[in-house]
């Protein structure tokens, strides 16, 4: 461990704001990148299910 205490780790020698801002936003964007395709796939499956129900009703 490079830092002596947890508060020092958060403070980052006075540069805490910048470091955590950069890491935070990057983490958010990485999570969004994961979530979007997962949601998209769910939506595709739902659409397909709806379509099949529609076709069953009509036939």
């Amino acid at each position, binding site marked *: *461990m*490079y*830092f002596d205490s947890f508060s020092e*780790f958060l403070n*980052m*020698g*006075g*540069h*805490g704001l*910048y*470091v955590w*801002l*950069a*890491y935070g*936003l*990057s983490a958010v*964007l*990485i999570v*969004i*990148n*994961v979530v*979007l*395709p*997962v949601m*998209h*796939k769910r939506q*595709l*499956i739902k659409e*397909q*299910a709806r379509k*099949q129900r529609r076709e069953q009703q009509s036939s």
Partner: protein
Amino acid sequence: MWKTFVAWFHRMGSPKWFYDITGRWIPWFAVASALLLIAGTVWALAFAPEDYQQGNSFRIIYIHVPAAILAQSIFFLMAMAGAVGLIWKMKVADMVAKSCAPIGASMTFIALFTGAVWGKPTWGAWWVWDARLTAMLILLFLYFGVIALQSAFDSKQSGARASAILSLVGVVNIPIIKYSVEWWNTLHQPATFTLTEKPAMPAEMWVPLLVMVIGFYCFFGTILMMRTRNEILEREKRTHWVQGLLSKK
């Protein structure tokens, strides 16, 4: 050797085969990228030493550099996939190219944002017309152009082909843009302090950086496969195998 490669290349062109094989690969890639990214981040934030000049803000390099490298490689990959799609009319290549664009744009944005945040403690300003940052900004514009063109066409196929041409034109231009921006930069701001150009980094600094770079590449691979699989499901939804696949769930 060549024959097996050609056979592999042809099978790669079949959406079903691509879907099946990437389905098996994704878990491995996902686990590898999660492990590498978490280990790399902890290492970078808590264990790597600070820079004697920049202090702890130097730790931003562990995101900025991998994102910047990845952003450029993704554009290159996108153009190559687009070229394969144009020349051999390979559908999967079109879909890979399309899936590249949003990931590449977000990586470019990460690189830009972290660069700007890093610039504040280093230069005292949120934005400096540094050659690398400016080139990144232009790369972001190029990504936006490709994404906008993809969605402007009614036919997905035409959209994919048009953006393939645009990304090829972009790839030819990127070195010219980089060179001209660097030249412009020296003209207007001679010898400014650049963020990432460091003489001989010690091992405890570059090893975590390497871990992060590999982690970012694995992450990109995972997301690219996920997105391409979705594209396959959407475009091939009329085929039997996709319908069977979707109704099972």
